[in-house]
């Protein structure tokens, strides 16, 4: 129940943070530094997966563990809180794999807001309690699962020419977005 409430309220956080900048830091950590609960959940949910790379992620003051690996030829990113409880599962996907209605709604948003836009990266994001997420992975059971789309895109419009990370609901309606600031790369050009 608490998790469901948390998910419900977290749904609105991006709306409040509309226009914020994405500030993120991610660095490798050893498997033994990750709580056993997280490692066990991963072992139960993704049988036969290959080597996992563990990261500590810091986003706007929030810290979490992130497991990255390939499974069934797809790139997975699974996030856990510091106690080892799963927060979400993200799967990298192509534009072509999005449902037709979702693509239509996203295109309507992009076309209405930008004169020119381009998708850079798409991740399907699954939220739910640990048991439901485990059932989703090993039995494709959708009950209790909330699906969202995290889209990295470039847009040219009245606000200028920027790179954004947009969060869309399961129907492709915008929930929130934040600007992605590319770290300085002057060392590559001068």
């Amino acid at each position, binding site marked *: 129940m608490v998790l469901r409430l948390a998910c419900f309220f977290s749904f609105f956080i991006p709306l409040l943070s509309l226009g914020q900048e994405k500030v993120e830091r991610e*660095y490798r950590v050893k498997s033994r530094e990750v709580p056993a609960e997280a490692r066990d959940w991963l072992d139960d949910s993704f049988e036969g997966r290959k080597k996992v790379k563990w990261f500590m992620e810091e986003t706007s003051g929030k810290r979490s563990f992130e497991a990255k690996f390939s499974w069934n030829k797809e790139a997975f990113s699974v996030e856990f809180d510091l106690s080892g409880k799963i927060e979400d599962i993200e799967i990298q996907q192509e534009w072509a794999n999005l449902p037709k209605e979702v693509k239509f709604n996203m295109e309507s948003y992009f076309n209405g807001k930008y004169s020119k836009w381009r998708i850079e990266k798409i991740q399907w994001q699954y939220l739910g309690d640990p048991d439901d997420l485990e059932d989703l992975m090993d039995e494709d059971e959708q009950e209790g699962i909330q699906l969202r789309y995290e889209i990295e895109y*470039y847009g040219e419009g009245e606000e200028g020419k920027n790179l954004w990370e947009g969060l869309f609901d399961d129907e492709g309606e915008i929930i929130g977005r934040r600007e992605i600031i590319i770290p300085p790369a*002057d060392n590559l050009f001068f």
Partner: protein
Amino acid sequence: MKRIVWVFLLALPMEVMAQGRVSNFGLFPEFQLGFNAAENLKITGKIESQHGMVDKTENSDADWGYYHNQTDFQGFLGTSINPFVAITGGYQYRLEPGSDDSHRSIQQISFLQRKGNYKIGHRIRADQTFAPNDPVEYRLRYRISYEIPIEGQSLDPGEFYLVFSDEPIYSLQSGESGFENRFVAALGHFSEGSQKFQAGIDYRTDRFFVSEFRQRTWFKFGWYLKL
């Protein structure tokens, strides 16, 4: 991993010198400062200086001894077309012992690509060098650079990275063509406060079309600061 990279970078000049055609090896410090002067106007200043430590020509002993080779002062004004493309114009003043000081005008367009966990930088640059008593030298150059994070999936503050770049340069002076290639391999650290530190090897080869084929190897280390 970092130790292996350091061993490789520090051993490279010795490997090159052992091949017998090295003309010099030295130190190459550089400092770069960039800031936004207006909403879409970026100013970049850079000082780079070459200090020779040893010269060697084929079939002769290495000549060890310090000398100042050259120091460049550069200033650039640039504007971004979008987060990935920038157009820049610049000027360079060069101090070169034994030669007249020279002036250089520079034009460049740069492209940034984000590929998975690494970045690719493309730089297309034209420059014209003016020195007393010398005909104008025109150059056209293209540099491709890879910046690869060592510790994470993306380069974040507090992390180390590798940089590899290669730049072929075509030059034309008094109707004579020249060709030079510059390869750089370095280890860098992206520090807090939008600054980067890099150290590595800058390996330059030129005079391909004449008998005096030349190799120059520099231990290059730099501080790149963005305000």
